[in-house]
C-alpha cells in the first residue's frame, strides 16, 4: 500500500499552492478547475513528473513509482505494435511473463484483435484505450488521468469512462483531472476544486454540485454547465 499520499504546504513556482491535502485509498478523486487553475501541475507533482519548489510530498511507503501510473490527454505511443507498447511498459517495470500479461490487458480494454497493429495508426479513442491497457497491465494502486477524454468524440469518451469505472471497481484509486462537469459527476466520489493554483474546496461530488461552499466553485459550475 502506497496510500495515503500526503501533500504539505506544496508550491510549484507561482503556478500552484501553497496547498496541503491527503489522498486516501478508496473514493475516486476528481480535480476540477478552469484552464490554468493548476490541475495538470498538481497531478504531475503527485505523480513525480515535477519537483515541488516548496513543500513536501510523501507516500506511505518507499518507492511508490512502481505502483502508480498516469494516462495523459494525448497518449504517446511508441512506433511498434499495440501489444509491444504494453510489453515495453511491463519490461521497464520488471514484470515477468510480459507477453501474456500484456495480452490480458488488451483483452480487458477490447483491443485484443488489434494487438499486432501498429499503435500509432490506431484511432484516437483506440490509442487512449491502449494507454489504459498499458496502465492496467501494471496493476497500479493509483491511476492518474489528465483529461483523458478531452480530445475524443462522445462514443470514444463513453468507452473510456466505462474503463475508468472498471479500474475504480477493481480497487485502483482513480485521480482524474477534468473540466467536464458531467464526467466529474459520473465518475467521481469527491471533488478537489482548484482556482488560480489554490485548493478552494474539497467536497463529496453531490454536495459540490448542489451546494458549492465557495463563490468560485459556484461561478465555475454555473459557467460550465451550459456546455456540458
Amino acid at each position: 500500500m502506497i496510500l495515503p499520499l500526503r501533500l504539505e504546504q506544496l508550491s510549484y513556482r507561482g503556478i500552484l499552492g501553497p496547498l496541503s491535502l491527503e489522498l486516501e485509498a478508496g473514493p475516486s478523486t476528481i480535480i476540477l478547475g478552469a484552464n490554468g487553475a493548476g490541475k495538470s501541475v498538481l497531478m504531475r507533482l503527485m505523480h513525480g513528473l515535477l519537483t515541488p519548489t516548496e513543500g513536501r510530498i510523501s507516500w506511505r511507503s518507499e518507492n511508490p513509482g512502481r505502483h502508480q501510473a498516469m494516462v495523459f490527454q494525448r497518449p504517446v505511443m511508441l512506433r511498434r505494435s499495440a501489444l509491444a507498447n504494453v510489453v515495453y511498459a511491463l519490461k521497464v517495470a520488471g514484470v515477468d511473463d510480459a507477453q501474456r500479461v500484456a495480452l490480458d490487458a488488451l483483452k480487458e480494454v477490447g483491443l485484443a484483435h488489434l494487438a499486432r497493429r501498429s499503435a500509432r495508426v490506431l484511432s484516437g479513442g483506440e490509442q487512449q484505450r491502449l494507454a489504459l491497457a498499458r496502465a492496467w497491465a501494471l496493476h497500479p494502486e493509483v491511476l492518474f488521468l489528465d483529461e483523458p477524454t478531452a480530445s475524443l468524440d462522445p462514443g470514444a469518451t463513453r468507452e473510456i469512462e466505462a474503463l475508468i469505472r472498471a479500474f475504480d471497481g477493481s480497487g485502483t484509486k482513480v485521480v482524474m483531472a477534468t473540466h467536464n462537469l458531467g464526467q466529474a459527476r459520473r465518475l467521481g466520489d469527491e471533488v478537489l476544486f482548484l482556482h488560480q493554483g489554490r485548493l478552494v474546496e474539497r467536497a463529496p461530488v453531490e454536495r459540490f454540485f448542489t451546494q458549492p461552499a465557495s463563490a468560485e466553485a459556484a461561478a465555475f459550475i454555473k459557467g460550465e454547465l451550459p456546455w456540458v
Partner: protein
Amino acid sequence: MQDIAKSLAGAAQLIVAGDPTLAGVVLLSLQVSLTAVLLATLLGLPLGAAIAVGRFRGRRALIVLLNALMGLPPVVVGLVVYLLLSRAGPLGELGLLFTPGAMVIAQTILIVPIIAALCRQSVEDAWREYEEQLRSLGARGVGAALTVLWDIRFSLLTAVLAGLGRASAEVGAVMIVGGNIDGVTRVMTTAIALETSKGDLPLALSLGIVLITLVLALNAAAYLVKEAAQQKYG
C-alpha cells in the same frame, strides 16, 4: 553542343564497358565515403542525442557551434587534417597522409557535425513528445534515450544520408589529404576535377553520371524505406 554529345557518347561507352579505371575510382570513392559515414554515424548520433537530452552549461552555444560546423568548408578541413598528418605534424608518425585513411579522417570530421546536428534536432523534437510518458513508465537515462533513438530510427536515416551526400560530393578535403594519386587515392570527385582540366571529358562525364546516379539511388531508397515505415508505424 557537338562536344557535349561526343562526351556523353564516350561516357556511356565507358560505363557500359565497365572500364577498369572508372570502376576502380568508383569503388574507392564508395569505400572512403561509406567508411567515413559509418564512423561519423557512430560518433554523431550519440553526440547529437546527448546534446538533445542533456541539460548542461554552454548547451546553447554548443548547438549554435554544431549548426555552424555543418557548413565547414571542405578545403579548410583538408588543410587542418593535412597539417596534423604531415610528416612534421603531431600525427605525422602515423604515415597516413596521401592514403585513403587520411581521406576517411577528413570526411569524417566534415560530416560528424551534419549527422550530430540533424540528430540533435530530431531527438529533441521526439524527446519533447516522449519525455513525460517515458518517465511515467519508469524509463530513465540511457534506456529512455535508446528507446527514443530506436523509435525515430527512420528520421535518423535522413541525417546519415545527408552526411553521405556531403562526403561523396566534396572534393576539397580529399584532394588535399589524399593527393589524387592514380590508383591509390583518386576518387570520383578528384578524378572529375583532374580529367576535366586535362580535357578527358568522356571520363569526367561518366564519373559525374555515376556519382549523381549513386546519390539519387541512395536517396530514393531511403525515401522509400522511410515512407514504408511511416505507413507501417505511423
